């Protein structure tokens, strides 16, 4: 009899726990939407990519602009990753511990360069990466549900915009644009400008004719002037 009572009490406790557990999970689902989770995962991958590439860039960049940007991005993304990890653990979201496959391939492309080409590749990757990251943060601001995750995106956005602006400025400052392009030595395409050549030839012919006529006229007038009246 006692055993039956114990069994009934245990069953009741399990049922009560189950009843309590279901609403608790439902509340969590309402707070962190799939958009919030997607953004946290994307942002963690970006932070990891920026930190690992930044560590390489600090060592290998040849320009102070690229090195300074690497230090700046590493510090800011480490801070962002720390905040994100706290948010993720509060909301039961599992964050990745490596960058995305595309970020891996971009980092491989950057690190395959050396010298000033490395700086260019790194800065261009910064422009591309931060443009994407800004777009992701803006999506979270407009579509995110969890107030803390949206607040994180709001704080993160100006930092990413600052990194993008610094990368763009550094690229422009490097003055890497070619100064000119020479792609022809044959002259065949200049035939399209034939009318100009014809007009120039006519003008030259006119000049010669006018000059010859003037020279012919001058002695005859002199002769007329020297004749006694």
């Amino acid at each position, binding site marked *: 009899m006692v055993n039956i009572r114990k069994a009934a009490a245990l069953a009741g406790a399990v049922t009560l726990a189950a009843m309590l557990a279901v609403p608790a999970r439902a509340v969590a689902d309402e707070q962190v939407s799939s958009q919030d989770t997607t953004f946290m995962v*994307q942002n963690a991958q970006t932070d990891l990519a920026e930190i690992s590439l930044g560590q390489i860039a600090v060592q290998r960049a040849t320009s102070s602009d690229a090195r300074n940007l690497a230090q700046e991005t590493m510090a800011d993304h480490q801070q962002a990753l720390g905040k994100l990890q706290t948010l993720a653990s509060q909301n039961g979201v599992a964050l990745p511990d490596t960058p995305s496959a595309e970020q891996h391939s*971009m980092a491989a492309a950057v690190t395959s360069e050396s010298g000033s080409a490395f700086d260019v590749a790194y800065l261009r990757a910064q422009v591309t990466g931060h443009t994407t990251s800004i777009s992701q943060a803006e999506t979270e601001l407009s579509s995110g549900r969890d107030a803390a995750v949206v607040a994180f995106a709001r704080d993160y956005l100006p930092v990413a915009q600052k990194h993008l602006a610094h990368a*763009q400025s550094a690229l422009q400052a490097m003055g890497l644009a*070619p100064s*000119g*392009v020479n792609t*022809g030595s*044959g002259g065949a395409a200049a035939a399209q400008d034939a009318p100009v050549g014809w007009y120039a*030839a006519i003008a030259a012919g006119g000049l010669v004719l006018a000059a010859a006529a003037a020279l012919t006229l001058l002695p005859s007038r002199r002769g007329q002037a020297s004749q006694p009246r």
Partner: protein
Amino acid sequence: MTLARTWLPCAGLAVGIALLSGGVAGVLTVPSPRDVGTVPEARTHSAPLTTVRAAAPAQEPPPAAAFAPAQAPLRVRIPTLSVNAPVVPVDTAPDNTLTVPEDPATVGWWSAGAWPGDRHGTVVLAGHVDTDEAGAGALFRLNDLRPGDVVALQTAQGTLSYRVRALRHYPKRTLPAETFDHSGAPRLVLITCGGRFDVRNREYTDNVVAYATSP
């Protein structure tokens, strides 16, 4: 006899002056090379490049897509000019001019600039108009491009399609630095030479630049 000796040079002088005036007027009034269309501004950000894949129907990129994978161009096709040329990466020479492939049938791609598929910057292709030895180059007829013409870049991942927006002729000294923009709106430029030919230096006076963007 005296009359003829006086009037003949006068007539010659008059005809000479008329020819000189007409010739000079002709040189001054001949239309400059045809600049057509509106140059897409690099500094005005536009929508990301839409790509047309060779093996799949065109699709809108997913929202908030991850990095657009950099795609090195392998060939350039311009159907209206019957151009179908291989593309190789090129860099700048010690004098900072952009090098072009030795083979005039091959087009150079400035690999330090934007890559096809990048969300920012100008993809720069440059090719010979002609050479002394080989005659016409891959971009001999670039001057004939018109807004709306299609330019397709083949990469290892597929084909990216662009439409010509404008054609411009610049004296070489004034080729805009913005042509090689790194961070503005995505676009493609094709560069060759044109204008008058300086026989002594064996080079053209101008650059011909075709600007294209995603369709």
